[in-house]
């Protein structure tokens, strides 16, 4: 019991220290600026305000990114320059080829199904009165960690031999349908799909909420006019709704693609990349911690970054376009 009390106290002390420390830092900086001659203050104060942010961004993002780029041209222990060897391994080794194939599967399937289902659900719930409740149910998994979701779904996929009662929901269903139970995470024909399904379950709610907002922004008059003209709901959906929410679909799809590219937790917890389920981010973790090959791990990270650079460029361009309007 006393151990618990001391831990609670330590927790509180740590929280207070962290929170008070940061408040004190800014009050102190502002106070110091106030001591300067009046004339200098407006020139110095902005740097006191953005200084801590710039320092942290520089230390935690800019410097390590450049350093990783540099390390990717060196050997496992970062001692010997090896040119493009790590990249050659990354792009040609059988392990990485499986990872690339799987990430491609993740990108295609998770994006198609999350966005597709999200759109279908958004259109359907728009027509019923319990819309908020239905949306909450679909959005709920967004509150659950990937690790928590992995446990939930490992239980859904649980396998027992055919002669005893199944305790996993999915095998119980297929046994009830007269099939044999399957090892969903072990069978190489289905295990990647089983993992991606977890990702879809987590991401669909996010797509649905954003697409639903876009749907509601379509002026009612346009839809009414089309209905009066006798257009079918099907035609309205494809010829009015879809074109009008096209740009939102693109943004949502980009987000899901990035998430699929960086998929890690689900694979790490559920299979750790065994039996042909490896993905890029999990392989990078293995190279870093299990094999201590920092050259290869860095090269894998750079490949991830390169894949995301177009999105980065698009973000910056969109931001600059917005600024011109302001």
């Amino acid at each position, binding site marked *: 019991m006393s151990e618990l009390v001391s831990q609670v106290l330590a927790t509180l002390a740590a*929280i207070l220290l962290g929170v008070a420390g*940061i408040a004190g830092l800014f009050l102190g900086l502002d106070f110091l600026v106030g001591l300067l001659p009046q004339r200098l203050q407006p020139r110095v104060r902005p740097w006191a305000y953005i200084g*801590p942010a710039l320092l942290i961004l520089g230390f935690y993002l800019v410097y390590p*990114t450049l350093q990783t780029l540099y390390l990717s041209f060196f050997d496992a222990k970062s001692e010997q320059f090896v040119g493009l060897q790590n990249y050659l391994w990354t792009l040609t080794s059988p392990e990485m080829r499986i990872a690339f194939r799987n990430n491609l599967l993740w990108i295609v399937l998770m994006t198609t199904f999350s966005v597709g289902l999200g759109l279908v659900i958004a259109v*359907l719930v728009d027509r019923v009165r319990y819309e908020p409740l*239905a949306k909450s149910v679909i959005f709920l998994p967004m*509150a659950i960690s990937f690790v928590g979701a992995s446990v939930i779904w490992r239980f859904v996929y649980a396998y027992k031999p055919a002669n005893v009662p199944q305790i996993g929901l999915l095998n119980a269903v297929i046994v009830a349908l007269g099939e044999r139970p399957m090892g969903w995470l072990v069978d190489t024909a289905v295990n990647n799909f089983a993992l991606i399904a977890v990702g879809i379950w987590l991401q669909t709610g996010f797509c649905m909420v954003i697409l639903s907002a876009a749907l509601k922004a379509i002026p009612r008059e346009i839809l009414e006019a089309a209905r009066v003209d006798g257009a079918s709901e099907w035609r309205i959906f494809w010829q009015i709704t879809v074109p009008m929410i096209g740009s939102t679909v693109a943004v949502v799809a980009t987000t899901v693609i990035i998430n699929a590219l960086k998929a890690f937790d689900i694979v790490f917890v559920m299979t750790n990349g065994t039996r042909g389920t490896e993905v890029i981010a999990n392989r990078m973790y293995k190279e870093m911690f299990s094999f201590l090959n920092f050259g290869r791990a860095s090269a894998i990270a750079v490949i991830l970054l390169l894949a995301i650079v177009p999105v980065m460029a698009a973000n910056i361009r969109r931001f600059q376009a917005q600024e011109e309007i302001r």
Partner: protein
Amino acid sequence: MSIVRQVLARFSLHLAIIGLCLLWLLPTVGLLVSSFRPKDAVFATGWWAVFQFPLDFSQFRLDNYIQVLTAQGLGRAFLNSLTIVIPSTVIPITIAAFAGYAFAWMNFPGRQVLFVIVVGLLVVPLQMTLIPLLRIYNQVGLSGTFLGIWLAHTGYGLPFAVYLLRNFFGSLPKDLFEAAYLDGASPLTAFTRLALPLSVPSLASLAIFQFIWVWNDLLVALIYLGGTEKVAPLTLRLSAMVQSLGQDWHLLTAAAFVSMAVPLLVFFALQRYFVRGILAGSVKG
């Protein structure tokens, strides 16, 4: 359209929605139900068996929770998660609020260029930063410490927080600040008494987003806290239990629910801010 067809269409619409909702809920319901069932029952029958006797509450126990919280060390992990998440939310938002305010309302050379860099950093994958930072952390003794992970989450959360708050502060009317300065307010007063109170909804959404992100994070904790059990958060402990317990579903389900309880509570209590935070945060890398 005839009445019959219309009724049929309504019926299939409700059927489709309810079917999808059930599909989305059942995995979580199964977890929750199993976490309260005794070990033998969990292994003998599927969790849906409890609905044969829905009013028989003797089939539910708290044993699994007691065991994971004490013997499995989840109680400590829960406190560790709290110790990690609160400063990891407050620190980046405070730093970002000052920076966002300066970006929005102060003049200094390089303002545009620096902010474009922040926008670029939004989507940098964490993986690009892990190796160099871990090396530095090991050299200076920051790995396996709360301070180390607070700062790491601050670094990773900052680009998005600065981006969001700068845009929000920038959308406040200019006259407001001019009036305050005419009345003799200092920049700090204008910021704390004017800008901050007006942005409570944005700050709340941002705080919830960062809170959930840190609470649910596995990768950052895995790298910078590693195997140090003394400081391991729930996600780390839970993923270690999956490796070590494997098929002990009565314990794994209870442990998973312990790790999900706080985010679910936040979700139900603050749903509006929660949804806004998640949506705004979708640009984050």
